[in-house]
């Protein structure tokens, strides 16, 4: 299994199990995960996420288990320098944006420039639309989910860029990508003729995606080859998302694609 959504470091709002690279490796391996794409958790709140990259990426890049990924804030004047260092020093194949924590829109200056550079370099751009349940956030730090439709718009503006939406969640989050009338049909019908209008260059990570039989619901909306397994460890128990895919009634070939081969094709790796 190739887990594409792992945070390495310290989460500021509540205790989690130890999440340094070595502890994460042991924990995730015990769940049967053989490879993971990780990013520095401190990047959520530190004013310059590059300092978090500098802290965590060296140990992630040294590991055979991890694919390192960087967090950038393209509204900072130094984003391009940080990008070059993360590419040159640690070879990151994926750059992540946390726009709802770093307080910018995807139309902000810098985002399209970063997207163009990433597309030219074959780097994948990830956008995290949520990190935790908005209903139980620390009341001094309420961060609403980022609109998935804005991620769709970014993908459409950059057809040569590969974009991953991390943390797309409850299906009653109102959005154009999965409108309510389509979601309503999920639980009533075994098949749907009309799927969500997902851009051809966009993938959906499933750690927050949950509805009845989650993978089956996702397959009614999205092509199997655009779905990615993620655990959101250490914030979540990894077993939850492992079983979300493994216990699904989806064909074994589809499960294997979601659990492993889609991520390998997107990010490379030796899972």
């Amino acid at each position: 299994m190739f887990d594409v959504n792992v945070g390495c470091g310290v989460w500021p709002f509540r205790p989690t199990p130890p999440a340094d690279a070595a502890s994460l490796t042991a924990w995730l391996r015990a769940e049967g995960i053989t490879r993971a794409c990780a990013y520095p958790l401190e990047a959520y709140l530190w004013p310059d996420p590059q300092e978090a990259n500098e802290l965590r990426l060296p140990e992630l890049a040294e590991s055979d288990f991890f694919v390192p990924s960087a967090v950038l804030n393209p509204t900072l004047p130094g984003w391009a320098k940080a990008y070059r260092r993360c590419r040159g020093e640690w070879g990151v194949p994926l750059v992540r944006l946390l726009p709802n924590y770093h307080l910018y829109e995807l139309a902000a200056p810098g985002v399209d420039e970063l997207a163009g550079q990433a597309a030219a370099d074959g780097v994948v751009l990830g956008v995290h639309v949520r990190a935790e349940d908005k209903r139980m956030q620390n009341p001094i730090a309420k961060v609403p989910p980022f609109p998935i439709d804005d991620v769709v718009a970014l993908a459409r503006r950059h057809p040569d860029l590969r974009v991953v939406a991390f943390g797309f969640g409850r299906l009653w989050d109102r959005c154009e990508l999965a409108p309510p009338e389509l979601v309503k049909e999920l639980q009533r019908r075994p098949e749907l003729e009309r799927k969500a209008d997902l851009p051809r260059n966009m993938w959906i990570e499933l750690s927050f995606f949950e509805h009845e039989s989650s993978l089956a619901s996702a397959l009614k909306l999205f092509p199997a080859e655009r779905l990615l397994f993620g655990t959101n460890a250490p914030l979540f128990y990894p077993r939850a998302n492992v079983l979300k895919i493994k216990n699904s009634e989806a064909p074994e070939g589809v499960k294997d694609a979601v659990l492993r081969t889609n991520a390998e094709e997107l990010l490379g790796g030796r899972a």
Partner: protein
Amino acid sequence: MNAIDIHVHHRWTDLAERPDYQIERTRFLALQSGIDKVLLLTMGGGTSPEELRERNDCTLRLMEEAPDFFLGAMYLSAAHDAADIRAEAARCVEAGMVGIKQGLEVNARNEGVDPIAEAAAEHGIPIVFHAWYKTVEVFEHESNASDIADLARRHPDTRIIMAHLTGVNRRGVQDIEDLPNVWVDTSGGWYDSEMVEYAVRHLGAERVVYGSDYPGRDYAPQIGRVLGAGLGEEDREKILWRNAAGLLGLDSDAS
């Protein structure tokens, strides 16, 4: 593995319109995740006594269809007369129901809940009561864990299963810590690490029961948070089925 899911919703409210596909999935998907029995919950807010009886009848019909798998909880409405509440409770217990559900439309502090709590104590069945501590999107009458604690203190002989461990979170666990007539179910949003262990440290594994909140949620990841938590096998067994079997009056050796 044995497991009883104490928090499963069904949407059959009109006897003439059985949602066959949804019901089939409720059972198939549970078995797929190793769940042997589920406690079916219905919703009854805003209903007349006659409408509420029909909803409870839908649950009873499902229990008849699969008596080894579907357990039933009745809905009782605090808006109804105490005599109606008592009569419906007696009818549903007589027909085999083993619990009561209370949802969002009445707060646990409301004295209208008292006849429901008294009926639960009289029949020796638990109430599964919605609870949450939310920072946003709080419903007008929605109970939080301190409201559940208030109800539990008013009715020490009534057993209450406070729903949504992750929803009520650490404050909610502390709210009920000293109330031995309150349990908490493991449902509530996503699968935050360390939450099950926290509940076990404060309440003991004896007062934590597995629940999924299906179909808004998915059995597999919801049971995954119990299977993936750092627990001993004996504690895990209690959470997955032994505690629920005791609460619902089942033969705990037969689950």
